[in-house]
């Protein structure tokens, strides 16, 4: 045997090293941008945070009243009510489209349309919602109009993501259940949906993120009122600004360092809220999906 060179001859190729460097670089850039945003907001917002800030009302005239409780409540109203509308409709549509509808041109065009809808700028949804819900249906500028508009905004996301989750359930589960004599509805509700549940919950998490972060579509529809809610149900029909809109408004009107701090504090609360909602959703997902 010739050519019995030592095996200890590991060389590093330059292209490998370059590629590795680029990968590390991109990761560092992404993470540092993300972290610097968070740190910047927290740094400016946390000093202004207090129990009083999240538990008192707001007034544009009275400088002693600069809390965000009404906005926090409005945001929760909009998130919860929108989900109450959008989640059942969205999931039921996804189930129908994947399990019942004949997979032909119609379903394909519906799928294509939902994809386009999920990419439409939310201002357009806002304009549409304003015309239909506020004016034609006579709901006025109200939380309910905002919720209905947001429902339109998030439905495509919920449908598309749930559809993907339902389609990724192995066909063998379905066959196994049918071969035991299970009816269609049982197969769908007891086998397919539970197997897809984590993807379905992901769609809800995405929807929550979209609702909390939305401003343009709500500007027209749920309005900018900041008064404290008067009644639990009547509040649905009154106007109310969300945290995001409040942030927009306070930042726009800020003329003193103090009012900028308010905006940052609101942003901090917004971040915390999104974080908490995500933790809740993923906890639910873990509880539901045991196996």
């Amino acid at each position: 045997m010739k050519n019995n060179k030592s095996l200890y001859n590991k060389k590093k190729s330059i292209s490998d090293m370059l590629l590795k460097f680029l990968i590390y670089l991109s990761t560092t850039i992404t993470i540092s941008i993300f972290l610097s945003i968070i740190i910047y907001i927290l740094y400016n917002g946390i000093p202004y945070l207090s129990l009083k800030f999240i538990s008192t009302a707001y007034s544009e005239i009275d400088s002693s009243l600069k809390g965000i409780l009404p906005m926090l409540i409005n945001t929760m109203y909009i998130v919860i009510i929108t989900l109450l509308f959008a989640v059942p409709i969205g999931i039921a549509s996804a189930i129908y489209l994947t399990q019942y509808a004949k997979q032909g041109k119609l379903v394909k065009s519906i799928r294509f349309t939902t994809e386009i809808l999920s990419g439409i700028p939310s201002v357009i949804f806002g304009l549409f919602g304003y015309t239909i819900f506020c004016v034609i249906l006579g709901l006025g500028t109200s939380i309910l109009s905002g919720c209905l508009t947001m429902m339109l905004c998030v439905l495509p996301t919920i449908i598309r993501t749930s559809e993907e989750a339902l389609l990724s359930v192995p066909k063998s589960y379905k066959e196994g259940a049918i071969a035991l004599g299970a009816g269609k509805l049982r197969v769908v509700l007891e086998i397919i949906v539970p197997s897809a549940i984590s993807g379905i919950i992901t769609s809800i998490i995405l929807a929550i993120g979209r609702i909390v972060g939305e401003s343009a579509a709500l500007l027209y529809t749920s309005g900018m009122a900041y008064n404290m809610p008067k009644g639990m149900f009547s509040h649905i029909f009154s106007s109310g600004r969300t945290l995001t809109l409040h942030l927009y408004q306070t930042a726009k009107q800020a003329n003193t360092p103090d009012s900028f701090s308010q905006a940052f504090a609101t942003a901090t609360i917004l971040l915390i809220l999104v974080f908490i909602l995500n933790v809740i959703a993923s906890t639910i997902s873990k509880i539901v999906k045991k196996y």
Partner: protein
Amino acid sequence: MSFKVDIQNLNLYYGDFHALKDINIKIRKNSVTAFIGPSGCGKSTCLKSINRMNDLVPNCKIKGKILIDNQNIYDSRTNLNLLRKRAGMVFQRPNPFPMSIYDNIAYGPRIHKIKNKKILDEIVEKSLRSVYLWDEVKDRLNKSALGISGGQQQRLCIARALAVEPQIILMDEPTSALDPLSTIKIEDLVEMLKVNYTVIIVTHNMQQAARISDTTAFFLSGNIVEYANTSKIFNNPTDKRTEDYITGRFG
């Protein structure tokens, strides 16, 4: 002699493709029948016609009759859920549901309206014992069925099929995804099963067909070339093509 399954002039089309051509075969009660043949010969298709799983395939057209206990299952009055309860199926790849071992077995009985916890417990134990899986899993009945080995999963799927008290068990290459040891366990099991059930098994493995079946049907491009006692097929086939296939000249 009583026939459990009687297939008469069965023709099956996938779109334009004529997958089964004039199949006629009578299968005895409490016997093991093997369907053998090269890939794409129609043996699995024929098996799936017996519990109408082919209904799930779009563009699948079926002509002819399949009688189970003298009732044509392609009659429009057939209750498919009851048919599939009577003719259970085990698939090529183990396909336990993503649930606990217990719930996998109890799923079928629950569909068929058994709710009593005590009865369900008994069914689960009995079904798992009959596939010799009880001792291996009795301490983790509430753990995920996806966490046991492939061979155990396949026996679990057989137990799941047995739990709804079928009379016929259709097996579609049940050991092709398993290791030799698990294969032997399943083969032993099949021989035990014929005491109470009519078993039809599709297999690629000719030794397996020779070992466990009473009768064998040899399929070739959608036709049954020969159907006879297994010993006759393997020792003294009538048709030249059968002989060529079992001696390994093609396939």
